[in-house]
């Protein structure tokens, strides 16, 4: 069953001008985004800066109120609620079920709280009694691979990787149904990043976590996620299982993104290519398909009509008019 189902999620920011703060346009940060996350599944939301991936994550956490669309969330097996229209008050009992892992392990921990208290805070807020809280903190520290003595130390005593472990323990404290991880390893050194990736993989196996993994690093995403949704200028352009997406991308943007990653192989230099042009401005996206000015396969129709995200093979969705021309996507 689905833990989360997002349908047509849209977030527009008005652009205002003049003394009367007249609305002269809008930034379509997220524009009709749809995807779902199954129980125990990790879905990666990938794209370059400004593509709207963080906006989508913040809407799901309801740190932002979406302009329109549905965020259907199942806090348990018998109930499903649409988070999009709910008031702060109505959201409060649901918040414990969706937890966040932050990008910056330095900014996301209160420097004046001891680590034990940081991890216990969500338990305290949700009325878990003292002895039980204590036992849970011990359990969580063990789960994320931190020694028990960490409880009575302050965050500054820990390295970036250890701090990220603390943040993960805090996110897991209430056994949430869904974890939203926003670039959880991008601030870490390579050797430490590998440790945290492995920890997340272990936790997925042991706890059956459902996770929305927001990231820009396609290498990291390959290891962590079961499925991937690729965003470009506020819209999802391709969704597929990780293996299928990396092996046979069927949107030119996904293909460009994969081709641009510098491979750690000096003999693969010619395989790395850059697409032409720059990412479109979400306040003023090109007509038709937003990727058309950069697309090597552009046809007249792409400049006029906007392709919808459609299923081109079981479980594989692409928003490209030429997605079925498989020969196009072979090298």
């Amino acid at each position, binding site marked *: 069953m689905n833990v989360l189902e997002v349908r047509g999620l849209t977030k527009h920011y008005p652009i205002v001008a003049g003394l009367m703060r007249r609305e002269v346009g809008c930034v379509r940060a997220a524009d009709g985004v749809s995807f779902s996350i199954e129980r125990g599944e990790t879905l990666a939301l990938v794209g370059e800066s400004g593509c709207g991936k963080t906006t989508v994550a913040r809407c799901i956490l309801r740190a932002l109120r979406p302009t329109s669309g549905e965020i259907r969330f199942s806090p348990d097996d018998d109930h499903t609620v649409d988070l999009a229209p709910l008031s702060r008050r109505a959201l409060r009992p649901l918040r414990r079920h969706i937890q966040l892992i932050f990008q910056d392990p330095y900014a996301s921990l209160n420097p004046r709280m001891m680590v034990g208290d940081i991890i216990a805070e969500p338990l305290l807020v949700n009325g878990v009694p003292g002895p039980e809280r204590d036992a849970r903190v011990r359990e969580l520290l063990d789960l994320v691979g931190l020694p028990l003595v960490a409880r009575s130390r302050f965050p500054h005593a820990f390295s970036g990787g250890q701090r990220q472990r603390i943040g993960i323990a805090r996110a897991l404290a209430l056994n949430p149904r869904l974890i939203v991880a926003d670039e959880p390893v991008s601030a870490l050194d390579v050797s430490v990043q590998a440790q945290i*990736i492995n920890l997340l993989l272990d936790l997925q196996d042991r706890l059956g976590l459902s996770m929305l993994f927001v990231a820009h690093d396609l290498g990291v995403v390959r290891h962590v996620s079961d499925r991937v949704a690729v965003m470009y200028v506020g819209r999802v352009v391709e969704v597929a299982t990780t293996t299928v997406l990396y092996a046979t991308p069927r949107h030119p943007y996904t293909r460009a993104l994969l081709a641009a990653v510098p*491979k*750690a192989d000096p003999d693969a230099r010619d395989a790395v290519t850059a697409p032409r042009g720059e990412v479109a401005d979400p306040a003023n996206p090109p007509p038709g398909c937003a990727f058309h000015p950069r697309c090597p396969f552009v046809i007249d129709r792409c400049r006029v009509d906007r392709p919808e995200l459609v299923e081109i093979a079981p479980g594989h969705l692409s928003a490209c008019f030429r997605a079925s021309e498989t020969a196009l996507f072979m090298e």
Partner: protein
Amino acid sequence: MVDGQKPIVSVRDLAVAFHQHTGTVRALEAVSLDLYPGRVLGVVGESGCGKSVTARAMLRILDRNGSITAGRVTLDPGTAGEQDVTALPPEGNAIRAIRGGRIGLIFQEPMAALSMQYTVGNQMMEAIRAHRDPGKQAARERAIALLHEVGIPRPETRIDAYPFQLSGGLRQRVGIALALAAEPDVLIADEPTTALDVTTQAQILALLRRLQRDKQIALMLITHDMGVIAQMADDVAVMYLGRIIEYAPVRELFRAPKHPYTRALLRSVPDLDAKPRQRLATIGGAVPQPNARPSGCPFHPRCPEVIPGRCDTMVPAPVPPGQQGASCFLVEDAAA
């Protein structure tokens, strides 16, 4: 690493210390490297390894509490015009002529190199005229030509833009144009694509490679990304806690890494061809704080192949200058 060719910059046994209220931190020790015309030296390592400090020491732009405690940085070694950069007064005319004139610098965040109050053209013309003044009009034409060369569309209008009006990718192109303004023969690029998205990164790396090849520039490329190293470098220096622990031509380094740290680092890079949920090889622990340097080999507390009683008490010899090798007892023993 090149037979018969002369380096344009030679660094020998460079050491840098920072004086803090808690004591002296040895940030760099026994660093030797060579930059050759038309070749790219990749310098790779994790945070705190000293890769940026090396670049800053070479240009004599260390923070005030930092000083070069040993070693030499020589420009044009073995020629009549040979200059010891470490002997120059850090704010004198001689070093100013080298900085920007002979050695251009590209920063991670181009906003650090650009002022917000002046237009792109103003800043470029200033850089052009600082070294060889061709006059105002000629400088403007040269600035437009440079912007065109680094792939900025409509340079004749963009020259009057302010940096904040440009995207990150365009700003880095301006940063590169600025570094090229005085036609340097050496370029130091410190994490030039780390702040950029992956498609923009690919564009900027392709640009750097084209310029470096066309102008036969000696490029020192500092990065934490093994992918960038594989794509760009001819030779590689791997750094850890202020020391070069391995130095090798790029193919050798990826095919047969010698130092346990290099091996571990290469294995911990996420793989685009990984199987679903594939674990990564990890290096235990974290990089120590620079003021808590381990005794002996700086990597020994994390090393899977540590030799007790040796690696924790003695420091392995640095890689001999100009040669391929690793600073590790295992490698020394294998050679003996």
